[in-house]
């Protein structure tokens, strides 16, 4: 029936094989230049507006069906909690995908509150580090993960530059990593803002397209330069993120890591990882060839003289 000759079939499959082999190499090499999906959503956190009411924590708890907290969400005493001999404030856990911490910067007459959650990086280090591909960066900008795929290796916890993924240490059977998913399933995939944004009484959180939020952030800084720092944290940090912050005091005084590079974490290993498929595919064949060439004559030396030495020249 088909008129595909044996020769054509072989040529076709060879071409297809080469293309399939080259495609992933190209993708890996190009990924370092990714600057987010064009219509990706994000949240602009204006720390000059946050009043520290912790409503976002309460809304997150309800939306994600998390276990009851140890203290009520309107209890201010949590702001005094410190960990590791006072060096660390509260961080995200398996029971709380977002937390608000209080800071007292020296140049501010009143405390500044900072909400912590997954920043949903453009090029997430957690995603890059995950060897079972549990993580996905969606078109809407959310970094989500598949609990059923996660093997609980915690590599993403090491990889995350913002220390966000938490671990379900309480679960004896099948513990997995837990983190903010931008309310992807229930809200953001349907075009609605995440629960924390919706409840925020001061509209410290602004939901919108990342590219529009960047413009709004710059406009706010420009119209009130005395009120804001010039930087937008998350515009470039580790390749940029969907969640970005503007503040009235320097970011390092609010617990932000300002030593992070602007390059995505994957760029540290991109060159090497891009080489791996090439090395794995070409080197065995290449060195087998070398080996055969190098041992060609030696091989025949071991043969007895009953053969006429046809390999010798």
């Amino acid at each position: 029936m088909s008129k595909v000759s044996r020769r054509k079939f072989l040529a076709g499959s060879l071409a297809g094989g080469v293309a399939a082999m080259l495609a992933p190499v190209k993708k890996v090499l190009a990924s370092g230049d990714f600057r987010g999906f064009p219509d990706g959503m994000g949240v602009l956190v204006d720390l000059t507006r946050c009043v520290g009411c912790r409503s976002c924590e309460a809304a997150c708890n309800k939306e994600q069906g998390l276990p009851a907290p140890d203290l009520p969400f309107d209890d201010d005493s949590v702001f005094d909690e410190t960990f590791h001999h006072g060096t660390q404030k509260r961080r995200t856990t398996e029971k709380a995908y977002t937390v608000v911490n209080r800071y007292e910067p020296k140049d501010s007459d009143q405390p500044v509150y900072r909400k912590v959650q997954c920043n949903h990086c453009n090029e997430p280090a957690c995603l890059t580090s995950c060897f079972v591909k549990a993580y996905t960066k969606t078109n809407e900008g959310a970094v989500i993960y598949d609990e059923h795929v996660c093997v609980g290796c915690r590599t993403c916890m090491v990889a995350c530059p913002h220390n966000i993924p938490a671990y379900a240490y309480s679960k004896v059977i099948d513990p997995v990593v837990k983190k903010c998913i931008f309310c992807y399933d229930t809200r953001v995939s349907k075009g609605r803002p995440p629960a924390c944004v919706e409840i925020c009484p001061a509209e410290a959180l602004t939901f919108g397209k990342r590219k529009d939020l960047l413009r709004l952030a710059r406009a706010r800084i420009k119209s009130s330069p005395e009120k804001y720092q010039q930087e937008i944290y998350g515009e470039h940090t580790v390749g940029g993120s969907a969640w970005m912050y503007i503040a009235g005091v320097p970011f390092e005084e609010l617990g932000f890591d300002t030593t992070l590079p602007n390059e995505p974490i994957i760029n540290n290993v991109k060159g090497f990882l891009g080489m791996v498929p090439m090395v794995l595919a070409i080197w065995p064949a290449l060195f087998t060839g070398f080996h055969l060439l190098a041992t060609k004559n030696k091989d025949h030396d071991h043969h007895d003289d009953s053969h006429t030495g046809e390999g010798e020249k």
Partner: protein
Amino acid sequence: MFGVSNWHMKGLLLLLLTLLLPMGVYAMDAPESVTIDTIAKYYEPVEFDHAMHMDVAEDCSVCHHHTTGTGATNPYCSKCHSENRESATVACQGCHSADPFSAESIRRQGELNLFHDDLIGLKGAYHENCLGCHRQMDGPTGCEDCHAKTDAGERLYHSGKYAPEPSTHSAAEHE
């Protein structure tokens, strides 16, 4: 005796009218009190004493920007809104949306040739405006100083009758 009293009454009325007339120009329909309940869900509606705040703020534009016809206080706003003309709507929710992240609002954020593209929502406008003054003038600043939690609110915050059992949770320092 009766005639004199009548004349006095008429004079008093006239005096009152002349006093009230210039006030009427500015505060034609200004309500004594406003019930803020459109976004009440986790907190009870707020009974806002508008008359008291009119006395405290002195100038309507402190809260109403350029809409009440008293001119804009912010020099940035007065670039366009220099005319002292009352707007068709002066209520907060006339401009500040109760649903600030609807599809329409998000589309507006991307409009490059639009002013007010960073228009804060109704809830944000209230709290930004109220809290700013309340901090400066030592007014109430705690959440429940202005509005009590509803039952749904207490459930959400795990507070009141839904508060977690006092456990072994030790605040302040963890290892």
